[in-house]
């Protein structure tokens, strides 16, 4: 690996981490759209900032552009407060306008501004190592590394300081407000970090990848864990993994790095969406099938409980009687046997003590809907979970 290659991967990974942290909270607050809005509407801020500073990497430009991000959020909320349109409509109104203002500004000043819309959307990660920070003649590494590194350090610092505040205001804004943790202060703090990260990252990776890196890793992590800290760690890991594997994919295919990283994010999400242990599509389908079987089991057990006469309890008779096909009957019979709920004696089925007890409890639960008593049953049977 050349040092440029290593530098690109480090920059991409740092961007991924810096995006995953605010992204996790955006996803939990169901505000994925707002990051899209910010990433586009910062464009006029960047152009104006560039006129003033003449340097795409100037911190002043980053702050000016981030301010445009905040203005977007304020505008969206203002339009929404009028009660005339919903939030997503408000977002859809604001950011295309700001974005097109930016595009027009670039077009009008094409000669003065070394910016083009493609670069804004897709970034120029491959060129990042060539724009270097030189301090009194010493090469300090790529400028974007310093920019995104600084932003990341601030983000991590804020995350550690305000983790509790972020958590409570995201979960229960009402309680947070009543305890004195102003949800709007936290909201605008998060929006500021998102905006600054977006601006800092956009030069390297472009607007589209910034959005993808904020939302996709967090959405993927959300499917895998029930713990906020772990969700953050997973988001970060997925982001970094996609950044590095996306880089090599681009290398192999001779394709756009940003595009390849976005592809990896998509592939990762799809895989988890399908195979996640409890929230994945396949797991959900399996659970539903199990629940159907368990309902059948219960029906079957209840039948046994209500009929003492042997003729009603003959294996063959059950097929006809409960009106199930052979396969279904066999599945149910097997499940009952496996759980020691029935015993078979010369093809006559009868409830065991455990089966009898289980049936009463289950029916009792279904009728009264009283929890507590059936906690131990939840572990074995899907039927009684949520």
């Amino acid at each position, binding site marked *: 690996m050349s040092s440029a290659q290593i530098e690109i991967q480090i920059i991409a990974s740092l961007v991924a981490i810096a995006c995953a942290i605010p992204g996790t909270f955006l996803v*939990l607050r169901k505000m994925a759209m707002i990051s899209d809005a910010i990433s586009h509407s910062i464009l006029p801020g960047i152009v104006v900032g560039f006129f003033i500073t003449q340097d795409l990497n100037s911190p002043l430009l980053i702050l000016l552009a981030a301010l445009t991000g905040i203005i977007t959020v304020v505008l969206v909320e203002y339009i929404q*407060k*009028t*009660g005339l349109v919903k939030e997503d409509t408000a977002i859809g109104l604001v950011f295309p306008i700001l974005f097109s203002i930016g595009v027009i500004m670039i077009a009008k000043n094409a000669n003065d501004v070394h910016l083009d819309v493609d670069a804004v959307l897709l970034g120029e990660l491959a060129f990042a190592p060539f724009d270097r920070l030189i301090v009194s003649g010493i090469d300090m590494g790529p400028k974007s590394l310093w920019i995104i590194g600084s932003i990341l350090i601030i983000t991590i610092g804020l995350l550690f*300081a*305000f*983790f*509790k*505040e972020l*958590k*409570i205001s*995201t*979960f*229960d804004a*009402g*309680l947070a*407000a*009543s*305890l*004195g*943790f102003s949800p709007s202060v936290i909201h605008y703090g998060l929006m500021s970090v998102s905006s600054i990260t977006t601006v800092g990252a956009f030069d390297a990776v472009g607007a589209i990848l910034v959005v993808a890196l904020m939302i996709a890793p967090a959405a993927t992590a*959300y499917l895998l*864990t*029930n*713990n*906020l800290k*772990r*969700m953050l760690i997973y988001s970060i890991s997925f982001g970094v993994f996609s950044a590095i594997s996306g880089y090599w994919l681009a290398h192999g295919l001779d394709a756009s790095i940003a595009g390849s990283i976005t592809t990896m994010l998509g592939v990762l999400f799809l895989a988890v969406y399908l195979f996640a242990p409890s929230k994945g599509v396949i797991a959900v389908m399996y659970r539903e099938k199990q629940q159907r079987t368990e309902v059948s089991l219960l029906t079957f057990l209840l039948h046994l409980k209500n009929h003492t006469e042997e003729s009603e309890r003959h294996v063959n008779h059950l097929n006809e009687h409960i009106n199930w096909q052979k396969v279904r009957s066999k599945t149910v019979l097997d499940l009952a046997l496996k759980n020691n709920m029935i015993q078979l004696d010369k093809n006559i089925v009868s409830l065991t003590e455990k089966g009898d007890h289980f049936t009463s409890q289950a029916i009792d639960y279904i009728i*009264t*809907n*009283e*929890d*507590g008593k059936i*906690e131990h049953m939840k572990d074995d049977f899907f039927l009684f*979970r*949520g």
Partner: protein
Amino acid sequence: MTKIAVQIDDLTVAYNYKPVLWDIDLEIPEGVLMAIVGPNGAGKSTLIKSILGILKPIAGSVSIYNKPYEKQRQLVAYVPQKGSVDWDFPTTALDVVMMGTYGSLGWIKRPGQKQKKAALEALEKVGMLPFKNRQISQLSGGQQQRIFLARALVQNASIYFMDEPFQGVDATTEIAIINILKELRKAGKTVIVVHHDLQTVPEYFDWVTFLNVKKIATGPVKDIFNDDNLTKTYGINYKVSIQE
């Protein structure tokens, strides 16, 4: 003369400039277990949120023991309506109860062993200790409501505001909750509950406020919980049979 725990003067609250509470005057004496009743959309949740500084009123004032709410946060605990939070949020029962301690910690400071111990005790009190590590979406409606109650208990407040704590709970949980509320009253706390089931008002509460955009009446249940006030509040000719 008992002390006044909560005093509300000329309170008007609006969403998007449309007032949903008009000119409310209300005094809640210390030590009552009070129901707020009124039809859907009457502004019951709005009233509580305005008292707790979550919403800014367009007119009027609220004081808690004669001082503005901002100075008295430590005295007040709040149980929001269950539907107001996302139960799929990645967190556990214990963690949610711990949130009740955040107010006493203030900004930045993290909860430690002391807060954890208090949260565990509160979980024990509402019978939810065995579920402390359960993800909150895996809890039944009644269990979620108990978690919310535990979170308020851990605040160790003087005044408790609860928005429909009996919503979607089973009979056992309802009894468990009301027993805890009665215990709080016995300990001299003031408990204010948005309540829907008019039948149980006389049995559960000793004080009641009728609300429908305006305050209709407030006072002891035995004096003012009658068909006249119910009709004024609910519009139609309302009758409840009050069991003695």
